[in-house]
């Protein structure tokens, strides 16, 4: 499902942070083209 895909990551500081999602995506064979972490406060 993610292999070979280009992924835009929108993480959250108080949820799953961007870099943590990015690690998962790379491990799944996807290419991460943007990693953003949101802070809602």
């Amino acid at each position, binding site marked *: 499902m993610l292999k070979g895909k*280009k992924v*835009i990551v929108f993480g959250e500081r108080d949820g799953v942070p961007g870099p943590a999602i990015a690690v*998962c995506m790379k*491990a799944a064979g996807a290419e991460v083209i*943007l990693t953003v972490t*949101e802070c809602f406060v």
Partner: protein
Amino acid sequence: MDTEKQTIIKKLVDEMGIQDLVVVIGAADPEVAQVTAETVTFGDPSFAGPLAGVSLRLPVYHILEPEVKKAVPQDVYQEQAGFMELVADTEEIGKRFKEIRNRIQEAEHSA
């Protein structure tokens, strides 16, 4: 989502097209995650930012959905994200994201 991030996404899509592009979201609150997901799929709901009225229809997933979990090596997933399954309402998140993806498909069929 602030306008600056919307600008970046719009630029990325304009440059690369939506072919093979996927958005993955990590907000813990279902409502918050939904707003982010809808912004990148159906446009800015506040009708203010660069994505106002722009329907990118990017396939969008939450990192805590079973489809995503299955696609990631389990040891990596457990280390990076698994913990948040205990914290977030994963069922509600799954429901809302499925609904959003269905709406994208419907929009495509009717287009």
